[in-house]
């Protein structure tokens, strides 16, 4: 059952990711990226990461992608021009990517043999309670640094997106 759910959502994620790369219109890419994030949230749930799955849907698929779609609509971004690309990239890119993937798959196979498996319910310490406890004890300093980072990002975004740039 877990294998079936994993395969269904892995195939959806990969198909949507391919669609992100091959679509020429940014809106189609953005909608496909939401599909990737949604299916990844299901896979997180399968791995027992309840809090991360919820944050994935709320922060990534919700907030960040809304921001993307908003900017695409605001700039009225159309389909991108396909001409003027380097022919070498087209010729060499796909084989090199396939080689990269092959090496990665080989390493993963060597590092994690078949007996390492995951099943739903095998890890139950990914709840908001456990994540929150770790966040406010072990990871308190990174948490504070992250809040400063968010503040800097807010100010930076406001300054950059101001109407007059002088």
């Amino acid at each position, binding site marked *: 059952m877990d294998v079936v759910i994993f395969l269904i959502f892995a195939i959806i994620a990969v198909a949507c990711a391919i669609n992100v790369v091959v679509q020429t219109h940014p809106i189609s890419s953005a909608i496909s990226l939401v599909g990737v994030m949604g299916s990844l949230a299901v896979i997180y749930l399968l*791995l027992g990461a309840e809090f*991360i799955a919820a944050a994935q849907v709320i922060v990534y698929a919700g907030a*960040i992608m809304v921001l993307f779609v908003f900017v695409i609509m605001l700039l009225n971004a159309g389909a991108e021009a*396909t001409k003027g690309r380097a022919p070498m*990239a087209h010729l060499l890119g796909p084989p090199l990517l396939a080689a990269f993937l092959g090496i990665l798959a080989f390493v993963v196979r060597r590092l*994690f043999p078949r007996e390492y498996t995951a099943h739903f319910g095998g890890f139950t310490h990914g709840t908001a309670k456990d994540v929150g406890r770790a966040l406010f004890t072990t990871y308190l300093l990174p948490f504070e640094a*992250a809040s400063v980072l968010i503040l800097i990002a807010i100010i930076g975004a406001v300054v*950059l997106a101001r109407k007059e740039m002088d």
Partner: protein
Amino acid sequence: MGSVPISWFLTLSAVLFALGVAGFLFRRSIITVFMSIELMLNAVNLSFVTFSYQLKKVDGHLFSFFVMVVAAAEAAVGLAIILTVFRNRKTLNIDDVSSMKD
């Protein structure tokens, strides 16, 4: 019954990361390049959560959470930069915004 090998999760993560790299290198629209970066960050998050499962520790979830925080900050600033570039150059093609290269 029906356990999924850990290596499948990591391979899915690798596939998504490779697709993100492909989008980052081959696409010419700034916004799509930016979305490819988000795709790569998502792939890395999947690895973190998988390692967290394998080690039976919650730490990977925290890393994944911080990646999300950084991605949100990056999206806010990056999209503001894209807005400014578009306002000054009237283009979203990265080949037209290469004055630092020349």
